[in-house]
């Protein structure tokens, strides 16, 4: 298993990278490589040119400004996992990162690479969807912002044109002390997720849910925001029955289009029925866990 030959380019700046992207035919950006390199060595993909983004420090940052969290596309998963800032302001990102890959893959893997690879079970895509994130892409022609709900063009393909590159992702932070939970199902401990769910919730101080954001990944080509469930929960006093009822709305959401259902691990080996069932189970569990956190009870780290 070896890659087909390619021409290798290692630009040192964003403008240089963009110029290469614009001018070269069949050029693929190389971020962390944890997803791309396996495709290359299996020869499932081949490209005439690889543009290595790892020597452009300007693409790697993680900062807050005016209640927004902005993360550069080449920021390493390991950096985010070890970041005191993230633990403070966006703990659900921490929850998700613990479940992504392993120590060695997080050293190189990037948030941008994950968002551009768009594996349907990509946890980071799910976290971005939970937060209504905005993704900023650039080309030699300029830059534009894409809402996370519009990010997916089709199965494992983001809606960027050939000469565009993802630069960063931004989202609004939730208030301090908000409840959060992220849990996933995999067949074997700590494997690729088949289905995962995330919840963000605030407590209005009066025993009721203030704000809530819910999503499930693994049902379709992009994260599924459970908007009906959110409406059901907004401003209500939570009970087990309410959470169960809200979780049931998972059943109303579309599953993979048939043409993609058979592609790629892990979808081929898990029926869509089971994925839907898991979506409901995990949606309910993260609602319960997020609420407990929101009202200040410890739940322990979900696995």
């Amino acid at each position, binding site marked *: *298993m070896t890659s087909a030959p390619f021409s290798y380019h290692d630009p040192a700046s964003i403008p240089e990278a963009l110029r290469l992207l614009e001018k070269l035919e069949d050029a693929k950006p190389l971020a962390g490589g944890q997803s791309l390199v396996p495709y290359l060595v299996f020869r499932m993909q081949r490209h005439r040119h690889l543009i290595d983004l790892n020597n452009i420090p300007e693409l790697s940052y993680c900062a807050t400004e005016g209640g927004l969290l902005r993360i550069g596309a080449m920021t390493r998963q390991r950096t985010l996992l070890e970041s005191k800032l993230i633990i403070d302001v966006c703990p659900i990102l921490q929850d998700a990162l613990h479940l992504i890959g392993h120590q060695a893959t997080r050293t190189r893997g990037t948030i941008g690479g994950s968002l551009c690879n768009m594996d349907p079970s990509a946890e980071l895509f799910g976290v971005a969807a939970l937060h209504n994130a905005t993704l900023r892409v650039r080309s030699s022609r300029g830059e534009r912002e894409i809402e996370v709900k519009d990010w997916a063009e089709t199965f494992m393909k983001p809606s960027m044109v050939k000469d565009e590159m993802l630069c960063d992702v931004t989202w609004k932070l939730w208030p301090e002390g908000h409840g959060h939970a992220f849990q996933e199902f995999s067949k074997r*401990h*700590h494997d690729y997720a088949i289905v995962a769910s995330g919840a963000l919730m605030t407590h209005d101080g009066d025993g009721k849910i203030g704000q809530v954001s819910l999503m499930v990944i693994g049902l379709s080509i992009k994260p599924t925001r459970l908007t009906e469930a959110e409406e059901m929960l907004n401003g209500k006093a939570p009970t087990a029955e309410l959470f169960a009822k809200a979780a049931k709305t998972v059943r109303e959401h579309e599953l993979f289009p048939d043409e993609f259902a058979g592609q790629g691990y892990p979808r081929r080996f898990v029926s869509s029925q089971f994925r839907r069932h898991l979506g409901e189970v995990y949606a309910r569990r993260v609602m319960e866990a997020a609420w407990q956190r929101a009202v200040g009870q410890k739940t322990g780290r979900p696995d």
Partner: protein
Amino acid sequence: MKNRFVGAPVERVEDLRLITGKGRFTGDLRPDGSWTAHFLRSPYAHARWSKLDASSAKAMPGVHAVFSFDDLPAYLRDKPFPLLVPNPAIRQPLTFTTLANHEACYAGEPVAVIVADSRDIAEDAAELIFVDYEVLRVANDCRDAAKPDAPPAHLSSKDNVGAVMTFNIGDADKAIAEAPHKLHDSYFQHRGCGHAMEGRAVLAMHDPLNDRLSIWSAAQAPYMVRTVIGAMLRLDDTKLRVVAPDVGGGFGPKGIVYHEEVVVAWLAMALNHSVTWSEDRHEQSTATCQERDEYAEADVAFDDDGRVLAVKVLVIQDTGAYMPFGIITEWVGATTLPGPYVLPNYRMDMTIALTNKVPCSPLRGNGRPQAVFVMERLMDRIAQYLGKDRTAVRELNMIKPEQMPYKVGLTGRDNSPVTYDSGDYPGCQRMAVDQADYSTFEERQQQARKEGRYLGIGIGNVVEATGLGPHEGATVRVLSSGKIGVFTGAAAQGQGHATVLTQVAADAFGTEIDQIEVFAADTALFPNGVGTFASRVAVNAGSSVHNASAKLRDLVLQMAADQMGIPSEEIAIMPGKVKVKDEALVRIGEGKPIEIPLSQLLLMSNGVPGYTASGQGNPGLSATDYFRPTQATYSNATHVVELEVDVETGLVQLLRYIVGHDCGRVLNPLIVCGQIQGGVAHGIGNALYEYMDYDEHAQPQTNTLEEYLLPGVLDVPKVEIVQMESPTPLNPLGIKGAGESGTIPAAAAIISAIENALQPFDIKISRCPLQAEHIVEMIARSKVRSQEESLVKA
């Protein structure tokens, strides 16, 4: 001889080089300028072709040669590989051809070989080879394949029946007809792949000056490799040397001789250049042997107490497209089924079906896990039917220690009657059950159910034939350095054989661990070995090393006695020398040495001028022994596992895992416990995770480690091992094998525990692997059933 090392947790002699990155695995051995071979493999499960055009590939810079079947010399084309383990039950003794002859019978079968400067260039070239494949119908599921009108796996075959076998004790049909109680059950099992961390690899070099072909292979049985390469390339064994260097895990599949070994050996000769090949992980799924599907229909008859009167089983087993190891796996399974239980009537009818999938070979456990699964599930069924405790029903049926040696009534794979030599099965089960706090489990289970949690406990027993023949040998001799060399055929893939044999030699000869050097798995250094499989090395190599070391001790002492002029009882062996014992110092005559270095003693024994040669024995301080076991020796184990099932997700969490184990005398407790812990990990994989999937066209689907799931660190609990020792009378050390009893009953015990956990849902489980989705489905169906039942009642 008092034992200082045998039985002690001696640190392994292999470890230093392995922890410092100085291991010598086959893929690490790369002579400067060697070429790399890469195989073009059939992408289809069944296809034929007339044209193969490699002209573009051959023209690529960096490519030295491309060969397909038609390019091979006649002596490689005119015969398939020899069948190493023939048996009259085999109806279609299909073995590999060197390369596929215009018909491929499994996806992954080698069609052509490319030799290039490096693997990446060879893969580029492979993409340029054109083959006009015509896709043919496939024999897929083995039950369908076994039918008379099934598409043939091989065009030249009239059907897919590879072998039919019957095993019989007493009269099962009569006993079932007359029995007070009987049950029927159906089982499906799938074992999966070996997936050793190191793939297969071969390096071949031809030495024209010595006219010898040297081959290094990640093989379990270098002697079998020598036999097959010698037969195919028509090379006498003086012209052929096969070495298994450090091997990164074997587990069975590396015990078969493969196309790649013969082809790479031939390439080295034909091209007069060293050639190397390493398997990648994709090839491990599609081109390395594995164990796969077995379907069993079982009937069990029993009395009111739960005593088993008869077991009758009809089995269809998938052997893949060829039968490289004959029917050993199936034979072993059939003769293992009775287990530790008295079984007065038994009939097993097995059909072994050829399919268009990767051929099957033994895989850790080798057919025994499947047999144990059937018997242990039946035991659970009997207990459930009668409302009795599962351990009590088992103990009632067990062979008692006073009944040893116990003739089971079957003929083993080694052609000798299956006779359990020693073991205390009830005692071992009681020991494991006590360790597991089984008696208080029901309390724990009830308490958990109140909290909405589902705990279960399960049990599985195994009696395992180990130490199989035909033989293993060792030569133990004094080296010119004065150290003691142990030369043996016993190959190792992680079991620590060198350490164990060092311990045995050190004790039997009477010296320190660091005075022993083991030379193994090299056909040039020890010509008459066999290899490693079936948990046989400790017994056979251990016994022969023991015997040879003891003989050498006598020779050395006798020679010393001659030189010193005192009786040998008054001489001690010390590291590197022989020395008069203190008490006898005074009796040493004028001019006689009080101590002699072993290196010097060796020279004396070879007749160096100036020294009087001893009249005893042959020149050279050397002793050889072949241990030929008269029969297998039987180790046994009981597994008890406690687990929790998440009924919403189907996920299983193993809480406690206990193994009660008896492998006779324990040579090295560190190593034996390591084998058990590792074996259990594999068994957990078989129970919950490992499944080699094929689609409706018999195309392999789970070809990466993300799809084929091996147990990871969070999936394997620490195994609590409790041991007893029933030394066997069958070999001088009293030892039995220990390599597979960690795996064999694991799936049975885990499935038994899951079923126990899901008792409130009244679910019967008859398959493994059992995945989360199956569990959730079964629970859902059971809820529907109970709703329907309550509707009917209403």
